[in-house]
Structures are given as C-alpha cells and as structure tokens.
C-alpha cells in the first residue's frame, strides 16, 4: 500500500533515488574524465599538426622511449615522489602524536596547529615566489644568511641539482606538513581511549603504545595520506614552475613529467607526443596506486561494505 503510493512520484522512488543522487558523478566521469582520457589515448597514436591528425602507429611511444629528457623528467618526478613520502608521512605522524598526547598546554597546541596549517592556505604562486626569494643566491637571501651563520659560503641554491631539490622538498614540507598532521590527528582522535588505558594497565610504555595502539588504529589514514602523496608527488609541476620562474631550469633539473607534458603539449603544441607522455604517466600512477590500494585491502573493504 505504501509502496504504490511512493511509486506515484519520482521523488519518492527509493529504487531510482540512488541513481539520481550519483548522476552528477556519472556525468562528470563521462564528460570530463573518460572522454578526455580516451581522446588522449587516440591522440598518442597520431601526429597532430594544425588540427590535422594522422595515425602514425606507435611512433610517439618509440620516440618517447629514446628521449633522454623524458627519462630525466621521469627520474625527477619519481625521486621527488619518494622523498616527499619519506618526509611527509612520518614527520606529520609524529607531530600529530605529540599534539594528541595528554601532556602540555592546549593553548600552545592550538597555536601550533593553526601556524602549521597557514602555509597550506598560500597559493603555489605565492609560496613559489616566497621560496624563490628565500633561496636567492645572493648572500642576503634568508637561506644563505643561515648557511653563512653556520660558517659556510653562500650557496647557489637553484643552480645545482641537489640544492634545488632541497628547496623543492622544503617547500613541500612547509606547505603540506600541517594538512597531513591534521589528517593523522583526526585518525588518532577516533581511537577509543580504552585501548590506551588497557595498554597502560598491561605496562606498555608510551612508545610501545604508539606502535601497538596508535599505528594500527590509524592504518586507514596512513593509506589515505600515502595515496594522496603519491598522487601529489608524481603530479608535481607548479612548485617547480614557480620556483624556477618558468618551465626551464638549469639542465632540466626541475623538470617533472607533468612539466614535460606541459612543455610539449601546451608550449610546443606537439599534441600527439605530449599525449603519449600523458598516457605513460597515467599508467604509472594507476599502477602504483592500484597496487597499493589492493595490497592494503581498500577495495575489498569498500566493496563488501
């Protein structure tokens, strides 16, 4: 009886409702993801000149395979991704654990949380400009003042590969440590207090509690933060673009895979070749993240929910 009443109106239909709710997602997926990705795959097998596309088989991929600059960009991106993982997972985790402890004044902790979050509010343009000026190679730049205070000569930060990388990593740490700390803190606060009480009755020290209670409790957060860091690391482009004031850096030391995609596709309008770069990048990111999400059981968990 109630069923027939509901059927009268679309808005009351419980069978149809979920599809209407997820419709905006399906439309977005189709128009802004599947169509462009499909188009990218097709273009990667073409030479596109002045709007004229000719199929050239796998020539773009063969060119890519032999392209030194492409491999350099790939190396830079992967190196950056791995190093950001190394700093942007453990450091925020420890900071969150410190804030989450009962020890200390909550006023200082609140100030700390806000201060650490402020960098994330800056745009990559502003952050890039500030860091470029801090890492200025003159002896009056902030970083060189520090280096000289420690008794070393001025460093030409952005001219050398490793010091340039250090600047990029520091920029990433500065901007994202606060956000990741918040994620970890949220994960830690969801762990019931009783677990800690029980552990402390069993005589576990604070350090043991961190490894036996906190770490297992925040595993989903670790998976999440790792996933977004892989994503962010491999897709990094604008940080380098701003730090080096353009897409050209000495010996391409700051060139990333997306930077190469941008150079070839947008700046040089070599659409076929750039599409091949994009497809390779997509495959790499999907391979890494799907492996990680499958290994950590995220898919299994979500589909049995």
């Amino acid at each position, binding site marked *: 009886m109630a069923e027939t009443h509901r059927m009268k109106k679309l808005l009351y239909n419980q069978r149809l409702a*979920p599809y209407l709710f*997820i419709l905006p997602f399906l439309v977005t997926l189709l128009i802004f993801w599947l169509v462009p990705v499909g188009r990218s795959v097709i273009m990667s097998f073409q030479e596109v000149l002045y709007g004229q596309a000719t199929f050239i088989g796998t020539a773009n991929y063969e060119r890519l395979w032999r392209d030194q600059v492409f491999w350099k960009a790939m190396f830079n991106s992967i190196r950056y991704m791995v190093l950001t993982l190394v700093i942007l997972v453990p450091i925020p985790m420890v900071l969150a654990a410190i804030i989450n402890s009962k020890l200390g004044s909550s006023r200082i902790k609140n100030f700390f949380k806000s201060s650490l979050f402020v960098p994330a509010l800056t745009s990559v343009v502003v952050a890039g400009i500030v860091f470029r*000026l*801090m890492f200025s190679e003159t002896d009056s730049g902030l970083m060189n003042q520090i280096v000289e205070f420690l008794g070393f000569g001025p460093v030409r930060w952005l001219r050398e590969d490793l010091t340039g990388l250090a600047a990029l990593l520091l920029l990433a740490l500065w901007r994202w440590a606060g956000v990741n700390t918040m994620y970890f803190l949220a994960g830690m606060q969801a762990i019931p207090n009783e677990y800690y009480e029980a552990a402390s009755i069993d005589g576990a020290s604070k350090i043991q509690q961190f490894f036996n209670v906190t770490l297992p409790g925040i595993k989903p957060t670790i998976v999440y933060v790792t996933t977004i860091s892989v994503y962010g690391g491999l897709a990094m482009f604008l940080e380098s673009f701003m730090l080096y004031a353009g897409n050209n850096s000495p010996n391409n030391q700051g060139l990333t895979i997306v930077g190469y995609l941008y150079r070839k596709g947008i700046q040089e309008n070599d659409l076929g070749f750039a599409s091949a770069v994009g497809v390779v990048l997509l495959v790499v990111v999907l391979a890494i993240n799907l492996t990680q999400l499958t290994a950590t059981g995220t898919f299994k968990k979500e589909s049995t929910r």
Partner: protein
Amino acid sequence: MSQQTATRPDRTSTVGASRPGMSRRTAALIQGAFLLAIALISLVPVLAIFVGTFQDGNEVIRNGISFSIDFSELSFDNYVMLFTDSGMYFQWFWNSLVLTVVQVVGTLLVSSFVAYGFAMYEFRGKSLGFILVIILMTIPFEMLMLPLYVQVNDIGAADQYWIVVLPFLAQAVTIFFFRQYFLGVPKEILEAGRVDGVSEFGIFFRLVVPIAKPAFAAMAILNGMTIWNNFLWPLLVLRSPDKFLLPIGLNTLLTPHGNNYELLIIGSFFSLIPILILFLAFQRFFVAGMTAGSVKG
C-alpha cells in the same frame, strides 16, 4: 580493523602514571618549547613576505628576502600604491572571491549529494561506482589537462568561467569524505522522514544536510583553499586579463624585467587574507569534522 588491538573491560584505573626520570612538568615544558619553535619556523615565510610589503620591490627581488631589515627604508608607499594605483589587482581579487564562493558552494552541494547516494542506498553497481570514485581520487588532474584543453578550444569554451568550475563540482575526494560522514548518520532519520511523507531528496536536504554541518565546515575549508588558490586550469582556460583570477594575475607580474614587483609582493600578501579569514572562522569545526568524516577501518 581496530578490534585486533587488545582491549579490556577494565576502565577504572587512570592513565599516565608518572614515568621515572623526568617530571611531567619538565616534559610539558620541553614539548611546549618544541611546538612553539616549529610553529614559528613555519610562519617565517609569511612573516618574511609581510616585511617585504614595506620594502622596495626591486631590492627585494634582487637581494631575496631576509630578516636583516634596514628600518629607515621601510615605508607605507606600497600600501598607498595598492589602494590607489594597482591596475587590475582588485578586479582579479573580486573575480577570485566570487568564483571561489560559487565553486565552493557548488562543490559541497553536488559532492555531498552524490556521497549521500553512495552512503544511504543499496543498488546495483554501487561498489563498482564507488571504486571508480576511489580511482578518480588517485588520478591527478594534470594528466587530463591536455585533452581537456584541446576539447575546450574545439568547442570554443575558452575564457569562460563555467568551464573553470564545471569539471570539479562532483569532486572525488569530497564525495569520499562526505560518504564517510553520512555512513555515521543513523538510518532511522531516513525512516522517520519517509513515515512523515518527505521525499527522498527532501530527506537529504532538510534532514541530513543540517546535521552534517561539521562535515560541511571541514570541506568548506579544504575546498576553499584549493579553489581560491587554483592556478593551472584557470591559467589554461582564461585568456583576457580582466577575467584573470588572483594567482594568474600575480603570476603575470613575475616577469624578468617587471616594473611592478611592489604589487607582486604586497598583492601576494593580501591574497592570503580572505582564505585566512575563512580558515580562522571555521577552524573550530575543522578537526571535529575531519575526525567524524575521516577514513575509518
């Protein structure tokens, strides 16, 4: 997954028996000093650019920023310039402000709408659909920029705001977050609404959205940050200077032989203000909202 940790029904005893060696007060002091030091270090770049707003722009660009300040050279000239002779700066500021408000509201509504469908109903294709959401979370937009850019040029949609906004309304990360949050909303609310004759969509808008305020606050901050600072896609799409958003406009001032570095610096500093206000206003909901919607085992 958290059940595997050893739990005991015994809740009577207290936590934090003092450890030997260091008193609680000393430990708290060391912790406080450590946190304050890191907090101050992370504010250095912002303070540095604030100092830069009182200095000569060309000097700052040539010499870099530092804390060796010559107080006799500081002046309010840049502030006077900003409010009297800053070209299109406030036009860009206004564009960014309007676009951010529209896009944040749009993203929160559309994404929570989609998330509600995934959280509250059982339907065919649900797990596949949600796995697609997760996969989309892991694909950087940068990979789509080229084909999307070509497509936008083909259909002549360049230089229009709707194309800046539309691809990001159903946003995977935000959908994921809201779904987590809605999973914690008791299903009885839906049943009660249905008994009262409220439509499925009425239940969402009138009963569920109001109780999800903390989630909306947390997502308003996270999306507000991203959208206010959005750079790459607007840079590709927007062509006329009077339509630029703030980050694009600022970027145009960063030329090798720029003659307006003062505006670049003071403009960068002022660009932080709206988003800082948003953050400070919603901050108290932030961790609570993140906790409630955070990834759970």
